[in-house]
């Protein structure tokens, strides 16, 4: 009886193993097939990975983060004297600008009243802070600590004090994910301020510049031109600051974004009024 029993156990165990493999492969196939849909399961997995996995990975990678911060602090400390000198010069310069700005602001108010113009076209949805970044070869994404509970939706624009940062591509209850302008997979429709030349910009591979992928009527903007969102694609609100034309070639031009993508702490999620 004993040998027979052993053979039976082996067969059942092998059957279970094969069944597990087949189930995993089938599950994977279904997940890949439905990954782009808004199924409850897919959203649940995304929710768990944002709310549970990211904090765990942050704890595990904390020593690297601490070392990175230490090096950063050391670098800052070394350049303290030099920075102090620059800041003193900047204060003098800014005081002059402040006087000018107050004058311009008064003038602006008067002119707006004369033109009967509205103030701006943006509605602030939420100000959120950065949880972590996924700056990899595949994409340039950041995760924020606010989600659809804070009324953040897909395709809303993310800005900071310097201009357009990116677009919300995914929102879970308490987290949202923003694709940065520097991601090669994101296109934005823009126009140059001085000439009104319409074009499409995408992220360049280097993660520093934005490069034109389409220019209307092949008219190239001038070097130093300021580029803002055109609002034609109806994803980004109109007239958000994007960057400055840094290089012009025969069929394309490069834009240096105003936003410093390495120093993002807080973002404002906005939408058109």
């Amino acid at each position, binding site marked *: 009886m004993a040998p027979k029993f052993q053979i039976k156990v082996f067969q059942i165990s092998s059957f279970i193993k094969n069944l597990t493999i087949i189930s995993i492969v089938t599950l994977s196939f279904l997940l890949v097939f439905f*990954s782009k849909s808004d199924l409850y399961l897919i959203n649940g997995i995304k929710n768990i990975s944002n709310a549970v996995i990211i904090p765990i990975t942050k704890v595990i990678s904390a020593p690297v*983060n601490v070392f990175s911060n230490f090096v950063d602090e050391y670098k800052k400390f070394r350049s303290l004297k030099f920075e102090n000198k620059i800041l003193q010069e900047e204060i003098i310069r800014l005081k002059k600008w402040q006087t000018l700005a107050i004058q311009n602001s008064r003038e602006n108010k008067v002119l707006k009243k004369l033109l009967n113009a509205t103030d701006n076209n943006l509605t602030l949805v939420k100000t959120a802070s950065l949880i972590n970044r996924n700056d990899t070869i595949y994409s340039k994404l950041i995760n924020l600590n606010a989600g659809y509970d804070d009324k953040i939706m897909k395709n809303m624009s993310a800005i900071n004090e310097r201009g357009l940062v990116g677009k919300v591509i995914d929102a879970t209850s308490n987290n949202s994910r923003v694709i940065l302008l520097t991601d090669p*997979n994101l296109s934005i429709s823009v126009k140059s301020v001085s000439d009104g030349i319409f074009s499409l910009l995408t992220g360049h591979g280097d993660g520093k510049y934005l490069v034109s992928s389409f220019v209307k009527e092949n008219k190239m903007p001038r070097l130093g031109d300021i580029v803002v969102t055109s609002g034609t694609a109806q994803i980004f609100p109109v007239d958000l600051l994007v960057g400055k034309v840094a290089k012009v070639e025969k069929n394309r031009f490069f834009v240096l974004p105003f936003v410093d993508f390495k120093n993002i702490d807080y973002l404002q999620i906005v939408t058109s009024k």
Partner: protein
Amino acid sequence: MEFSKFLNPSSKLNIILIISFSISVNSFILFPNVNNVFYILFHLTLIYLIFYHYHYYLYVVALIYGILFDILLLNNIGVHLITFLSLLILFIFLRKYLISLSSYQIIFIYFITLIILLLIEQSLANLIHNYKFNMSAFLNFFLISLIIFIPTVFLFTKLDK
């Protein structure tokens, strides 16, 4: 050291998997290559586990890490999940041929597998989700792989005794 005696090589390699995964999905502005290094280390560890410590639980490991990598790096499930599971399935068929090879040949195949895996991941990201194939990033991966491959193999053989 006392604690390490309680862990078998497979557990140690799984701890390396968790650490390398955690670091590779978090970017560090001052050290942009750190997450690339750990991303490659994760692949190296997974291939090593499949080659030398093959077990059915690796299907669950591949499923979990595949989904998490896909969601955290690409926001779409597919690329890593397909690659990791394909590697596991392919290994079952090729195992009998690998056994007959010398250690140097296996190490060469180990490296080739890593490069092919990274190449397939980028190609699949391009095919399935329309992500742009970044040649310079791939060359960067190749260079990092060349640099860290031998020390990693040395470390793994030490862990494996």
